[in-house]
């Protein structure tokens, strides 16, 4: 339920999978003012930098993760007129094709929903304390952060 100002945000860090339709339904329920919903969903790809990937392990920093996502949403709300925001990020063991992350944003206007959703993803990628360990050919290795992600977050600041 998102029927009060303070309940317009849903943040969930979870091992369990999520259902995209249910999340969009929650964003839309009793919300006939916001005509636009933009969603991003990220899944485990089978290839990363030419290595064949079989799965991932997602670690996070409990407590800080939720705080950092709240802060990112606050920053988005300062820049765009948006309605509801949902962020779901999975942790633990994931396989190729599994959903990792969902960001959904509603707004009266599609331009603001697009901008806020992309901003949240860009910041999540550099600010939220999650780390991926890749399983590839029976070997485990921690992923390096991409410079392109750091650059994207900087773009929003200019």
């Amino acid at each position, binding site marked *: 339920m998102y029927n009060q100002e303070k309940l317009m945000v849903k943040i969930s860090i979870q091992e369990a999978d999520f259902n995209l339709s249910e999340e969009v339904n929650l964003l839309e329920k009793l919300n006939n003012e916001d005509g636009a919903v933009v969603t991003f969903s*990220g899944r485990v790809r089978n290839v990363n930098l030419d290595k064949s990937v079989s799965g991932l392990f*997602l*670690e*996070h*920093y409990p*407590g*800080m993760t939720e*705080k*950092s996502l709240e802060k990112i949403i606050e920053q988005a709300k300062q820049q765009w007129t948006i309605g509801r925001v949902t962020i779901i*990020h999975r942790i633990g063991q994931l396989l190729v094709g599994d959903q*990792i*992350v969902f960001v959904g944003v509603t707004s009266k206007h599609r331009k603001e929903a697009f901008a806020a959703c992309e901003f949240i*993803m860009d910041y*999540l*990628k*550099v*600010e*939220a*304390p*999650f*780390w*991926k*360990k890749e399983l590839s050919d029976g070997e485990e290795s*921690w*992923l*390096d*952060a*991409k410079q392109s*992600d*750091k650059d994207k977050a900087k773009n929003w600041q200019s």
Partner: protein
Amino acid sequence: MIKILFFAALREQLGSEGTLLPSENISSVEQVIDALIVKNPHWQVAFKSSLLCAVNQEMVNKSHSVNTGDEVAFFPPVTGG
């Protein structure tokens, strides 16, 4: 005391999830790192790599102040999403 936490590759590299440091003579993140290396000289290499730091679960830079009771976390650049 100051509560120290390590995550992900750094945790594995150090072989430690965290530790407690006495807060005497420590007033910044830089001084936390110095004290950790004095206590564990073989950690020096790990702290030369690109790391992020959070004080009380907020991302900060190395000159940020640290007080007794704070939670100071070190970790590699994040890779979620």
